[in-house]
């Protein structure tokens, strides 16, 4: 008995088209941000300055461009691999519209400065909840489809989807635990070192389980389809899957080498990162070898071309990643543009090219027609490839050489480049080349949009594609002496739980010790909570996205202590909700900026950076001199801090604003001495208060550090 049913192509088409739309928008925002780095006047408004657009760029390309592509590709392949329609058309629609609404919310809130200040997790708590709900809808729809399937065994691509779903859910929830003080503002529940560890456990695994595993699932489906030949080794794909998800989850701490994170956690991150090379390259070779004997087709088929370069970029990025987690290499590359180049090999090479290949393959099929122009698709391929090279190569050089400049000493033992800005101006050419590379890449995308449009208008959407298959019951094999894995393979729920255990063990072993052991974070008695005004200033610092260009983590190198001052200690950050260590230095580190300059210096510098630092590429912040500080939230903020364990006195929240006014008066008086008539209610006063406080507690005379009792 054969059952007839229909595949839902409409939902795939919807997800695919918004992938392209948001992709273009996300890339254009990225291009704008790239130009802002060389032409400061492109920071055209408070909502359009680099610090706010950069999170918009990363969130848009990760969650809108790549995210929608995951849904498009998995909805297409799930139906066909399981020989059934998606579980529920209604859930598909809720998933689609819900996700787009979340993206729209991000597009509105991020430029408005509503941010948690944690990279790739910047969205505020109401949106975090919405993401969770829509993710659950996706999960129910996927598991429902799996349960009503007509194919007993789950193809490896589906394992990747399941692992993606379960891990992203875990990461998102754990990293987003925050205490709201209003609808648009919350504080990370974690502080300092713990916040950093959770954040980079999340950040690293967002790369692993949002940008990598779902795309490997897509690779294992679409590459054999496009090449019309089976995957090179199915056994290798199984090894690839289990070792990848097991290893990936441990590697997060490699983002925090030489930081105040405990040494054992750093080493753990490095060891597992190195081991990751094996499964990653196993997977890459599995992809490329699938094309064995079909290389003649690669020459003429743009889809295969895109896939080949995508998989090659995957291989490059996953070799480079582990190398970057070696401390000696990390010491050079971290905080520089090297990392930006590295992530774009992954982003525009691996993810971008997989998506383009998939789009060129899917659109003609779903519209029952031929691709409008293979020539244009080939042109897109070459423009894209050239774009990647032009983007990445200059930044590799820029990162490497800037890092060397940071570390260069004269024979007498002085820094050759004591002024940070000089090292930045040296690499401006590379920044321009990056702008050109990005533009070339985006030009290719425009060609694709035209090509897809033409193809669409030449055909007609096959919204419901006829299919047939025998029902599952009839497929029962006479006798199956099963192994545990075949048992798991047939049972999606067990598969989901096993995946969760595998990734959960890694997460728990990595994170829990840092939380359990009070002695892991040595307390420094001179470190005190922020004053209310400093806290306000810190929130503005987070709002403006200062962390996108400035780190607050001096590493224990002579070149850094010489330039910035004492290196960062774990105990200094215990009241930092969220931590602000940063990941990139387009400007100098700010951990020891407190008391380094007079208040007036900051006043002038924030109004026009070039006045204090000629040639500076930093955006100006004139709106801080116009907007009034919102002191209605002071009490709530202090109360929130108390809830999270920051030791303010009991009656303090009620009188916090008195403290605010007193400190404002002191700063205004100091400014007056330097001939500046400032209004104390302005936001700039709070920013100055914070900047003058950062990293100064450790300078207090009495430094009592309690060493960990169990190192």
């Amino acid at each position, binding site marked *: 008995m054969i059952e007839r049913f229909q595949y839902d192509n409409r939902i795939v088409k919807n997800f695919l088209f918004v992938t392209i739309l948001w992709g273009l928008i996300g890339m254009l925002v990225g291009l704008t941000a790239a130009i802002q780095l060389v032409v400061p006047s492109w920071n055209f408004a408070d909502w359009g300055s680099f610090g706010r657009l950069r999170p918009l760029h990363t969130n848009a390309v990760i969650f809108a461009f790549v995210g929608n592509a995951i849904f498009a590709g998995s909805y297409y*392949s799930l139906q066909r*691999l399981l020989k059934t329609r998606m579980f529920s058309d209604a859930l598909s629609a809720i998933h689609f519209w819900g996700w787009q609404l979340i993206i729209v919310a991000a597009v509105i809130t991020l430029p408005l400065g509503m941010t948690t200040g944690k990279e790739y997790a910047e969205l505020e708590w109401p949106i975090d909840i919405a993401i969770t709900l829509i993710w659950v809808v996706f999960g129910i729809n996927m598991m429902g489809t799996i349960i009503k399937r007509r*194919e007993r*065994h789950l*193809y*490896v*691509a589906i394992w990747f989807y399941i692992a993606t779903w379960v891990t992203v859910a875990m990461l998102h929830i754990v990293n987003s635990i925050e205490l709201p003080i209003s609808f648009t503002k919350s504080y990370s*529940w*974690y502080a300092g070192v713990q916040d950093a560890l959770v954040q980079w456990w999340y950040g690293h695994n967002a790369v692993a389980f949002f940008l990598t595993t779902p795309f490997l699932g897509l690779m*294992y489906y679409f590459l*054999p*389809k496009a090449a*019309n*030949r*089976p*995957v090179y080794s*199915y*056994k290798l794909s199984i*090894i690839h899957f*289990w*070792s990848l998800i*097991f*290893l990936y989850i441990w590697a997060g701490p490699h983002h925090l080498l030489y930081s105040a994170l405990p040494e*054992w956690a750093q*080493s*753990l991150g490095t*060891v*597992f990162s190195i*081991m990751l090379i094996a499964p990653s390259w196993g997977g890459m070779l599995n992809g490329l070898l699938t094309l064995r004997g079909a290389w003649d087709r690669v020459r*003429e*088929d*743009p889809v295969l071309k895109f896939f080949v370069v995508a998989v090659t970029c995957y291989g490059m990025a996953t070799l480079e990643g582990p190398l970057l987690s070696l401390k000696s290499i990390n010491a050079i590359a971290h905080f520089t543009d090297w990392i930006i180049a590295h992530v774009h090999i992954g982003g525009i090479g691996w993810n971008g090219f997989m998506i383009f290949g998939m789009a*060129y393959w899917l659109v*003609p*099929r779903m519209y029952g*027609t*031929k*691709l*409008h*122009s*293979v*020539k244009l*698709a080939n042109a897109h391929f070459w423009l894209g490839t050239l774009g990647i090279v032009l983007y990445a190569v200059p930044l590799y050089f820029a990162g490497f050489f800037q890092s060397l400049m940071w570390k260069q000493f004269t024979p007498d033992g002085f820094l050759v480049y004591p002024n940070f800005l000089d090292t930045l101006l040296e690499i401006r050419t590379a920044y321009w080349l990056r702008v050109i590379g990005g533009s070339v890449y985006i030009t290719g995308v425009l060609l694709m949009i035209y090509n897809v449009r033409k193809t669409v208008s030449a055909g007609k959407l096959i919204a419901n594609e006829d*299919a047939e298959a025998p029902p599952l019951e009839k497929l029962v094999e006479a006798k199956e002496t099963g*192994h*545990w*894995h*075949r048992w798991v393979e047939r049972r999606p729920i067990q598969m989901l739980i096993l995946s969760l255990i*595998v990734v959960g*063990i*890694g997460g728990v*072993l990595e994170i829990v*010790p840092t*939380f*359990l*052991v*009070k*002695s892991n974070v040595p307390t420094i008695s001179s470190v005190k909570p922020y004053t209310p005004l400093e806290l306000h200033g810190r929130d503005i610092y987070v709002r403006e996205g200062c962390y996108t260009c400035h780190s607050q983590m001096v590493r224990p190198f002579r070149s850094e202590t010489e330039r910035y001052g004492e290196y960062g200690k774990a105990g200094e950050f215990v009241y930092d909700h969220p931590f602000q260590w940063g990941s990139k230095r387009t400007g100098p580190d700010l951990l020891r900026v407190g008391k380094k300059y007079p208040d007036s210096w900051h006043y002038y510098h924030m109004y026009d950076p070039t006045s204090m630092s000629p040639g500076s590429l930093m955006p100006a912040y004139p709106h801080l001199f116009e907007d009034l500080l919102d002191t209605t939230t002071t009490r709530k903020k202090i109360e929130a801090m108390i809830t999270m*364990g920051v030791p303010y006195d009991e009656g303090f929240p009620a009188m916090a604003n008195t403290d605010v006014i007193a400190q404002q008066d002191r700063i205004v008086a100091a400014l007056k001495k330097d001939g500046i008539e400032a209004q104390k209610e302005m936001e700039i006063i709070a920013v100055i208060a914070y900047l003058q406080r950062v990293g100064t507690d450790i300078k207090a005379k009495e430094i009592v550090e309690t060493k960990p009792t*169990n190192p």
Partner: protein
Amino acid sequence: MLKFIKHHMDTIAGIGLYPAISFVLFFSFFLGMLWWIRSVSKGHIAHMTALPLAEDKQPNDSLHHAN
């Protein structure tokens, strides 16, 4: 809840054991997986490998006849 965990457990013995535990866990998991892969039947692998290609009704060459 986190406050409870943070402030009531002040020490944890043998923190250095964690990397060792993780390594042993991974290694035994990996060996088990290899053992399973070795013993899985050829027929099953062939079935799985063919899955993505099985449902193809449309010709796979929509690109090649375009201009």
